[in-house]
Structures are given as C-alpha cells and as structure tokens.
C-alpha cells in the first residue's frame, strides 16, 4: 500500500515538495532537543499532578495537574479573557523598562567613561542594587498617586541596575583608538555617540536589557498582588481567593510563556546588534 502510494506520485510534485521536506528536516533537527526538554517538563508536571491527586492531604489541589490546567488555559484563550491581564501587565513592564533604559543607558555611559564616577557611585549603587525592589513597596505606595505608577516605579528600580552596569561594561570595552580616530576625522560629540559609541555598546546594552526584562517580569507578579485589580499577578491572587486552582495554574503557564517570548525577543535583539562577524 505504501509502495503504491509512492509509485502513484507525480515526480514533479516530489520536486515541488522538496524544499518543504528539507525545511521540515531542518526544523526537526533544530527542534528535537528543545522538544525533549519540553516533554521532560511536562512529564514532571504530570507526575506532580498525579502525586498531589493521590495524597489525601493535597487532593484539593488536584487541578494543578496538566489536564485541568490546560483546559482552563484553553478557556482563558478561547474566551479572550486572557488578554486583558496580559495587556495591563505588559503596560506596566513596558513603562518600567522604558524608564530603566532612559536612566540606565546614559548613567552606564557616564560610569563607563568617567572612572571617578564609577568609584564615587560604587558603594551607594551596590547598596541600592541589593535591596529587594519589593522592599520599596510601602514607600512607592506613599510616594505615587496611583497603583500603576507605584508598580512601574518598582519595576524600573529593579531593572535599572543590569542595564546601567551592562552599558558601563560596554563603554569600558570601547577601543580608545576608535575615539581617537573619530576625533581626528572631525567627529563632534553627536557623531561620536551616534557612529561610534552606540554601535560599539549596542550588544552590551541589549544584554543588560535582557537581564532587566527577566528581573522586571519576576518583580511584576508580586507587585501586582497589592492594590491593583488588573494584571497577571492580580489574576493569580484572584484565582486563589476563589479556589480556581486550574485557572491559577493556567495563569502561571501564561506568565511563563510570555516571559519566554520576551526573552526570545531580547536574544534576537542581542544577535542583531552584535557587530562580531557571524561565524
């Protein structure tokens, strides 16, 4: 039967399908290991769900298992209810990161450029950096009129450090003769920034942004536990209060997926901004 099917195929069809087949082959090769990892995670999850369901003490949480969770996930997606909390959360993370970049990049450039500034800022910045952003929560709530602003502040204060220090690192790696040559060719400060400094540090800046996105996305959820009535963090809290554990797990899944996508975007940007010759 198989053989008949093969025989009856028109050779030109095969030819036309070849690129597709080749693409499929490449995709399979590229994806087989990631697929293995995902399968492993699922197996663990499945086993965890099974263990919870078979223990009398934890039976009430059985809907954390893949089955109920995926059902709840599908419901969130198909009803479109998932978009509103995502939108609120991305809005906050987006603004938080925007402020962190607006402050972190210039600050990093200056720290990288002026050794004295680096020395002056070292202790206070390391001190501030090690304070959990969530510790600022009560102050943020007092200082800002809206909950949104407070959360954006918390995200920004968490995200600013990796961006600042990655930028400074990039600036320190600039070859001094690049600046000399630029000077010699008649570059004004704008030229130096636009044609020399920025392209030279772009990759480091994006690497910093990638770290910052990770931190911001982590800080977001606990920050949304308080006060606000929208966002993914709020949705988790809400699901817990209403004992909808399948929905709670589905939101966790959403957080993970979006976090992964944000990271993937950053990796893309890092690659694209790298000036190192592609090997």
């Amino acid at each position, binding site marked *: 039967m198989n053989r008949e099917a093969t025989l009856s195929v028109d050779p030109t069809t095969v030819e036309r399908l070849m690129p597709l087949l080749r693409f499929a082959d490449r995709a399979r090769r590229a994806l087989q290991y990631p697929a293995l990892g995902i399968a492993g995670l699922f197996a663990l999850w499945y086993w965890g769900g099974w263990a919870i369901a078979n223990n009398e003490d934890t039976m009430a949480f059985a809907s954390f298992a893949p089955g109920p969770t995926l059902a709840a996930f599908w419901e969130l997606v198909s009803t479109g209810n998932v978009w509103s909390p995502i939108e609120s959360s991305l809005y906050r993370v987006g603004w938080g990161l925007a402020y962190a970049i607006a402050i972190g990049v210039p600050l990093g450039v200056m720290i990288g450029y002026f050794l004295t500034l680096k020395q002056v800022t070292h202790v206070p910045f390391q001190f501030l950096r090690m304070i959990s952003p969530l510790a600022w929560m009560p102050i943020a709530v007092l200082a800002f009129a809206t909950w949104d602003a407070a959360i954006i502040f918390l995200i920004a204060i968490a995200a600013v450090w990796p961006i600042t220090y990655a930028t400074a690192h990039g600036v320190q790696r600039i070859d001094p003769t690049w600046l000399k040559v630029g000077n*010699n060719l008649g570059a004004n400060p704008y030229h130096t920034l636009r*044609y020399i400094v920025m392209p030279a540090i772009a990759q480091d800046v994006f690497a910093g942004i990638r770290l910052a996105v990770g931190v911001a996305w982590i800080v977001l959820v606990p920050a949304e536990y308080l006060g606000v009535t929208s966002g993914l963090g709020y949705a988790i809290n809400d699901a817990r209060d209403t004992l909808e554990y399948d929905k709670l797990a589905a939101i966790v899944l959403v957080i993970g997926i979006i976090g992964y996508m944000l990271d993937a975007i950053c990796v893309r940007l890092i690659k694209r901004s790298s000036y190192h010759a592609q090997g």
Partner: protein
Amino acid sequence: MGAAISIDYITHHYPGQEQPTLKDIQVQVAPGETIALIGQSGCGKSTLLHMLAGLLIPSDGCVRINGHQVIKPSPRWNMMFQKPSLYPWMTVRKNASLGLIFQGRKRDMQSRIDSLLETVGLTEKAEVNVQSLSGGQQQRVALARSLATDPELLLLDEPFSALDAFTRVALQDEVVRLAHERGISVVFVTHDIEEAVAMADRVLVMGSNPGTITAELKVDIAHPRNRNSQAFVDLKAELMGYFGATRTAATAESSTGETETTPDDDAGEDKSKTEHSSARVRAA
C-alpha cells in the same frame, strides 16, 4: 597641498613622570616632505606624533602647521595607527566615508569614495564588512579613510609593522606614491630601517631619556627606489650605525670589553652583517 610643519622646542612631561619624555625637540618639515622617526622603544615617538595630530598638547613649546598652532585634532592632518582601528560594524565604504560624513561633505561622497577605493585596490570589497578583510586590506581601508578628507599631512605610527613582508613593501610604495601624487607631507614612525630608507626624504633618529633628536639623515634617492641599489644599502648601513652607536652608549657600562666605535666605523665594519641580518631594530 602639503603642510609645512614647524615643531618649536617641544618639551613634554607626562604627569607623574620625573624626567621629561621629550626635551627641546625642534624640527621643520617642508610641504610634501616625508619624514621618518626612528628610535628605541619608549623614546617618545608616539608622543611626538600625537602632538602633531593635536591629540596631545605639549607641556612646553608648540607645533605649527602652515603657521597656525595645533591645538586640537583636525581632518586636515590624519593619524594612522599600528592597528587599522576600523569600525567593525561598518562596511569598507562606510569606514572610508566617515570623515566626509562628520564634515557634512556628503554631496559627491559616493564617487569620491569610489575613486579612493579604486586607488587602494578595494573596489570589489566596497560593500563588505571590514572584519572579513585581511590585515593588509584593513590597513588599506584605514589609508583610504585617512585620505578621504584630503589631508595635507599624514601621521603614521608604525602603520605596517603588523603586516607580512610582501604586503608591507606594497603598502610602503603605495603611501609614497599617493603622498607624492597629492603633495601630502608625511611623518611616520617606524622600527624598520629599510622602511625608513624606502619611504623617507629625511630620517630623524631619536634618543631616549629624555627624548631628543640625536641624528638626521637625508635620503637623496629618487623614487621608485631600488632597495638593492648600492646607495640604498649604504644608507641602511649608515642608519644602522647611528642606531648601533646609541645602543653601544646605552650598554657601555654593563659590557666592559666593548670598545668605543664611531658610527661610521661601525657601519663600515658591520656592513656585511647588516645586509644579512633583518633591518628591524625594535630595541631589546
């Protein structure tokens, strides 16, 4: 046209250094002249070149180009370094165009760069990223980048020392040709005696601690120079002699058995040796 340079009694102290790095340097360079600076490592050659470029201000004395004191860098006098120092995120064309972009001279940029790249033999590589070029090709891009702004003066700090012998000779001849065509004055630093004799109209030998000009040698050989001609070989030996003399003086205290020789004797006796040994004299 080439720049007339007047170096007027330059003395330079780097902060924290006891001895001056340069002391009472006085040199005149005629328009279109090519000068080689040669001397032991650390004697202040790069320091002097940075001052000519306006990248460093001497603590005493001044540099004048066409009568104007040099106080800051300008595209009219361009410096090239040992490393090509190209911008690795740009194509060959973009690197070469940068001076014109910075000066806002974008009108006929395309055609100017085209002809310049042709001059240095990189027409085919114009749109290629500079990282994919060989060391010699990269140094050619750097040369094109320096020439794009029509400088009156080229300052070269050991520009070819990282290249293989063939590429080095080719580039030496190329710089000489271009400088003559355009009437550009050139001041270059080298550790390679042959390079000095091949390119320069005048060779200045520098001594160290503090850096001063200790000898001067005219190279009166017409271009293109035959590197095997007697005149060329003699000049190389003479220059080696100057250098040998400074070395002898420096090591006289430690090596007791050594007899004092005048530069000329030294050159005469060591002539056969000089010819066979590599003429590179980076100090030990």
